[in-house]
């Protein structure tokens, strides 16, 4: 029981200590950085937008619409939606 609590305590304290800015050793640097990158980078569910077959310009969309008799879905926005800067 006591051992279990101790282990849990270590698991909780260790990453907090790193985040709180305690010195990282050179040996643990690479693994720590790589893990932080993995946590930060976009997840598949945040990239669903990529599953849509986007056309590159409105005139190209209109050309394809006419050729294939499909309606156009046009979204106009501020910023850069593709990179989440919007």
């Amino acid at each position, binding site marked *: 029981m006591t051992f279990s609590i101790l282990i849990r305590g270590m698991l909780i304290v260790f990453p907090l200590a790193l985040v709180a800015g305690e010195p990282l050793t050179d040996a643990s640097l690479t693994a720590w*950085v790589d893990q932080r990158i993995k946590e930060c980078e976009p997840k598949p569910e*945040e990239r669903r937008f990529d599953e849509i077959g986007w056309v590159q310009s409105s005139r190209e969309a209109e050309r394809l619409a006419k050729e294939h008799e499909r*309606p*156009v879905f046009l979204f106009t926005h501020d910023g850069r939606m593709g990179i989440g800067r919007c």
Partner: protein
Amino acid sequence: MRAGPLSDPKVISLLNAYFVPVYISNEDYDERGSAPKEEKKEHDRIYHQALEAKLSAGTVHVYILTPEGKVLDSRHVAKAAEPGEVARLLESVVGKLKTPPGEPLARPAPQSAPKGASPGSLVLHLTARGKGCSWEDFPSESWIVLERAQAAKLLPPGEAVPGSSWDIYPGVSESILTHFFPQTENNDASPKRILEQSLKANLICVKDGVAHARVEGKVKLKHNFYPGRDDGRLVEAAVTGYVDFEPAVGGTPGRVRSLRLVTGKATYGPGTISVSVRSM
């Protein structure tokens, strides 16, 4: 929109099967924008035709055009973002036009990708997330391309000796650190916003011809949430990472194999941010 209807499997399926989907940035369509003249003219036509048809029209908007290019319907972004609204709109259009289903007319592809990277350049992918200071539905990204000569300035000016340290050339570090900000309405990433910045490398070891150096640094920059509205917000971040590289030998310049950076303690205005940078 991206985190809402445009991530909804039903909307994705409808767009791919029945529509020609396209999104455009208003920045490209204003007077100084990079869109071709004909594209800008067409954009104006759609906007004015929507108004003439007594449909909603605006800058952040969904427009539905018939296969002949006539504006059939539209939605303001606030309305379009309501749950189920875009799916209902698309289904109604398909029903009205009796459009048969088919394959997507353009192959779905990652919408976040680097542009203009020449051979030998170092391409960096940056991800930034804000908490309590930004929209949090998905992260923002930046692609940073360092030409070969710029990338070389990440490396030591002299011999790669374990224990040695060097300051990364400020002109190179600022081109990375200037992108350390979360999702905001303001996308100005110019280095002139930087108040303080530094990246310093310390060589840990050289093994099998590859040097491994620890990188530490910081950035403090001014970044308003809305463009042109001075709110005094600052990004303040500690940066940690590493660079693996082939040291210069004789006349052969050194080459970066991998650069990885992350923020430690990092804040933006009232919230916190986390940023990662990874060479591709």
